[in-house]
């Protein structure tokens, strides 16, 4: 076997493994003084990693390990988006990690997070269901540790327990479905399977079971129930990572598998997605309106966003793929900005995350309030922010494929979502408050990350070359 192909095509994973080893060693070697610069060290490493892997080195696709691992340029783009998201989360997490009770284990946070990232990278590039499953589990198990990171706090531990139990359930069901596939098709290679999928009832059943696993990751209704509890209980930085990076990877690989493996039963999975999209967007919106806690609120917001993301999946076209990836990128910028604000407010106000606590934030912290507002505007899809363009493209892609009613339902739901996003804005700007969150100055990393997200929220929609650039690679998928 020619091992040079491994290095030439799996460069992202190999470099990431290198980063993990470096972080582990730093954790081991660095003394009390050196640990103070842990964030700087990791962020610099990540920066080099992103800079080195952001551009796809190869134009075409290639198989490694006999097709277990598949290199595609568009997967490379998704991996870069994931890595950038991780970097932004790292930038935001220092205030939390410098606390008395977490200071000693900050190395663990970085290593665990990077391990999940590695798992997702493998998952995104999988060419075989086993590879896909291993990647997913590699991402899932450390994720449970991350959720329960503040394990001495009751709700963090509870969140971790709920997460791991739900994840196990989902994985079990999914593996069950995959085993049926092996039984009916005789292979688990994506490329060989496509011809063997004939739409027999057993295969349809296993299609649904397989979908539940990713539906769990994406927290689509009805597989979403863990989301709110976990998002609320987990440390805010972990929540933001969970809501963005983990979703992005799952949405992408879902599209790839549907398009590559199941084109012959597209009617079935499109119907399934149709139902799930309508349920996700609607149910999440309905719940979001009633929330009192901002993190819980963001959980439902992210469920409904996942519904919109699925609009890109349901198309199964290169244009749908392009708008999907663009949507993920824009969603990442807005969501990480919102969570960045939530996280820094939480750290500087003694753990306040209620929506009422945000009353009058504009008076004391105008910059944070404005960033939060722009992030919410982008999530709601108000022009001229990037969220408008991403929604526009993804709706257009679905409309083009004839999902007119679906797009109409999604449109109505954006109106509802506008209402609850604006509730937060109203709290920050209008509702008076006797003792609002006092004025404070965030740490440097958070400020930098918010600035990055802000640039994304404003620029991504206007600089059309981003969308075109993604489109260029998506068409070769």
């Amino acid at each position, binding site marked *: 076997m020619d091992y040079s192909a491994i290095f030439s095509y799996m460069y992202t994973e190999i470099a990431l493994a290198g980063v993990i080893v470096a972080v582990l060693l730093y954790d081991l070697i660095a003394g009390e003084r050196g640990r103070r610069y842990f964030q700087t060290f990791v962020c610099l490493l990540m920066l080099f990693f992103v800079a080195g892997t952001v551009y796809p080195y190869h134009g075409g696709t290639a198989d490694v390990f006999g097709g277990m691992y598949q290199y595609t340029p568009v997967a490379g783009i998704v991996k870069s988006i994931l890595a950038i998201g991780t970097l932004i989360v790292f930038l935001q997490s220092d205030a939390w990690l410098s606390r008395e009770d977490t200071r000693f284990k900050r190395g663990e946070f970085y290593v665990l997070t990077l391990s999940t990232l590695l798992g997702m990278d493998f998952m995104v590039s999988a060419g075989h269901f086993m590879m896909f499953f291993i990647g997913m589990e590699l991402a899932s198990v450390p994720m449970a540790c991350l959720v329960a990171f503040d394990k001495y706090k009751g709700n963090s531990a509870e969140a971790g*327990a*709920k997460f791991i*139990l*739900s994840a196990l*359930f*989902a994985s079990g*069901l999914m593996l069950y479905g995959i085993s049926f596939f092996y039984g009916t098709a005789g292979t688990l290679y994506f490329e060989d399977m496509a011809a063997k999928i004939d739409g027999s*009832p057993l295969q*349809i*059943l296993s*299609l*649904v*079971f397989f*979908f*539940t696993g990713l539906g*769990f990751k994406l927290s689509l*209704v*009805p*597989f979403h*129930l*863990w989301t*709110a*509890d976990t998002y609320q209980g987990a440390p805010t930085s972990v929540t933001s990572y969970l809501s963005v990076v983990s979703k992005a990877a799952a949405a992408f690989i879902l599209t790839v598998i549907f398009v590559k493996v199941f084109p012959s039963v597209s009617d*079935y999975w499109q*119907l*399934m997605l149709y*139902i*799930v999209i309508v349920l996700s967007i609607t*149910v999440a*919106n*309905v*719940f979001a*309106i*009633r929330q009192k806690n901002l993190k819980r609120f963001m959980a439902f917001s992210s469920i409904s966003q996942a519904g919109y993301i699925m609009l890109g999946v349901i198309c199964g076209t290169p244009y749908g793929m392009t708008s999907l990836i663009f949507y993920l990128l824009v969603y990442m910028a807005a969501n990480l900005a919102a969570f960045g604000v939530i996280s820094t407010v939480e750290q500087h106000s003694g753990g306040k995350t209620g929506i009422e606590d945000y009353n009058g934030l504009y008076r004391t912290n105008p910059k944070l309030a404005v960033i939060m507002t722009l992030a919410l505007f982008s999530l709601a899809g108000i022009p001229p922010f990037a969220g408008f363009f991403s929604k526009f493209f993804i709706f257009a892609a679905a409309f083009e494929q004839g999902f007119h009613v679906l797009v109409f339902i999604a449109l*109505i739901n954006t*109106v*509802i979502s506008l*209402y609850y996003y604006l509730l937060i804005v109203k709290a920050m700007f209008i509702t008076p408050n006797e003792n609002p969150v006092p004025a404070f100055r965030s740490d440097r990393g958070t400020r930098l990350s918010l600035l990055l997200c802000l640039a994304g929220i404003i620029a991504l929609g206007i600089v*059309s*070359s981003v969308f*075109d650039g993604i489109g260029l690679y998506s068409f070769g998928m």
Partner: protein
Amino acid sequence: MEYTILILLLPFLSFILTGLLGTRLKPVAAGTFGTAVTGIVALLSYWTAFSYFGAGRNAEGIYPTMIPWNAEWLPFGGSLHIDLGILLDPISVMMLVVISTVSFMVHIYSFGYMKGERGFQRYYSFLSLFTMSMLGLVVATNIFQMYIFWELVGVSSYLLIGFYYTRKEAVAASKKAFIVTRFADLGFLVGILIYGFYTGSFSFTPDSAVIGTAKVFLPLALGLMFIGGAGKSAMFPLHIWLPDAMEGPTPVSALIHAATMVVAGVYLVARMFPLFIGYAPEVLHITAYVGAFTALYAAVVACVQSDIKRVLAFSTISQIGFMIVSLGVCTSSDPHAGGLGYMASMFHLFTHAMFKALLFLGAGCIIHAVHSNEMSAMGGLRKYMPVTHITFLTACLAIAGIWPFSGFFSKDEILAACFAFSPVMGWVMTFIAGLTAFYMFRLYYNIFWGRENRELHAEHTPHEAPLTMTIPLVFLAAVTLAAGWIPFGNFVSSDGQAYRIHIDWSVAAVSLCVAAVGIALATWMYLREDRKVADSLAVRFSGLHKAAYHRFYIDEIYQFVTHKIIFACISTPIAWFDRHVVDGFMNLLAYVTQKFSWVIRGMQSGYVQRYGIWFLGGALGLAIVLLLV
């Protein structure tokens, strides 16, 4: 010539910087920065013009159209896409020079005029925004980019008219300007969409094979685009915003509402000229009649206004009418046979920008000195303000069309083009030229000669403006003196070939005579202190005088139409529909959502085992649905 992108980027940068830093910047620093940037932009524009025209003509004898910079910004399906880029051709290069020159002069001038004003930084920031937008408009590579910058220009005009936002009149004026032009822009947008739909591109030069299929709709599209142009260029009956726009600071009036933005409509027609001539000559001639009527109407109104800025505003409307007429009377793209008007129009645009900016800046000096816009506060100012006096006189002579000032040359070409189209048009325009001379000199005598308001001047002695304000005056006066000798036809002509301007002396003699009569009449009526003739005429024709003073009640007609007809009969029912049906639907959504959320809140119980049941139940439910359907 990639550096031309800097012409747009630098003012944008200046806008962002001075806008974001705001009052954290010292006023002087903001002003200096904005002025320096505009100065560099002006130099770049001159260099662009120099190297563009210096590069010479191509084999076909025309200056080639260059696109040094272009990016596909928004692709649609098929061939349709929106580009952002820079297009250089003779008229866009000419406009670059005009805009950057006037803008630079206004930047310098504003130092003195706006000194000590609140919001000085904001003022310079908006000026930069305007400069950027206007430059972007003229170098647009396609009609949609033009539209984007067209709206940006509208916004900056709105912001600057309403600069004194604590004054009620200024706020009303800015709203009026925005709404009226926006209303017209609707026509422009619809025109663009029709154009894009039928020609399959937003380019100025679409595929001629495709145009064949769009034959019926192309004139319609061009006509609608002209409505947009008429709004910006204050053509009758969409002119009503321009006189009110004078509520803005005077240098702004000079830059936006005299020299640059208001000629955007003319530029638009000139830009689309090949299409107009090739496929919709009738529409082009309609614009000529609109322009001629506007020119006449505005000239008559200008004769009786007492606010000096209003006089200049109506004079601007009238002069833009001249430019539109000149384009509209073209019957072919050969300047020797019916296409002369194109060159004449662009020439007049150029010279008018210079002398009208000069007039406004001069008016600014006068207002600065006497703290009033009304003629009654002036009179006899020549003693106090010699520089303003001489430069103002230069501009008056130019606009009246007296040899050897620049206006003579461009107006002569316009009249020649009109006579070539039809003698009636020629004589009408000649008459309006005479009226122009009359009202301009009425203005001049009322300001600098005539009855002096001694009480006011004793209380507060008028004084010459500071150097920052007089230097731009002198510069523009020098340009006004020299611009007529520019061999303009050499650079710009309807078919791109070199055209040698030759004065048609029969036309010139007539127009000179008419102008002289106008000036003589004004001298007779207004030079002396008592103004017996003028007053008695005003009394004898009091009906006409009053109607003209009230601008023939056009604003009142608008008021009637909008309030009594549109608001009462159309808006009220629509508002009812909106409030009850549209909002009702939204309220229904909210109500259903609320109720629904009560029903299903049990789902989120907090017990992980129940979550598992939902999970499995959901999966099985999905499977059943898929298998049954």
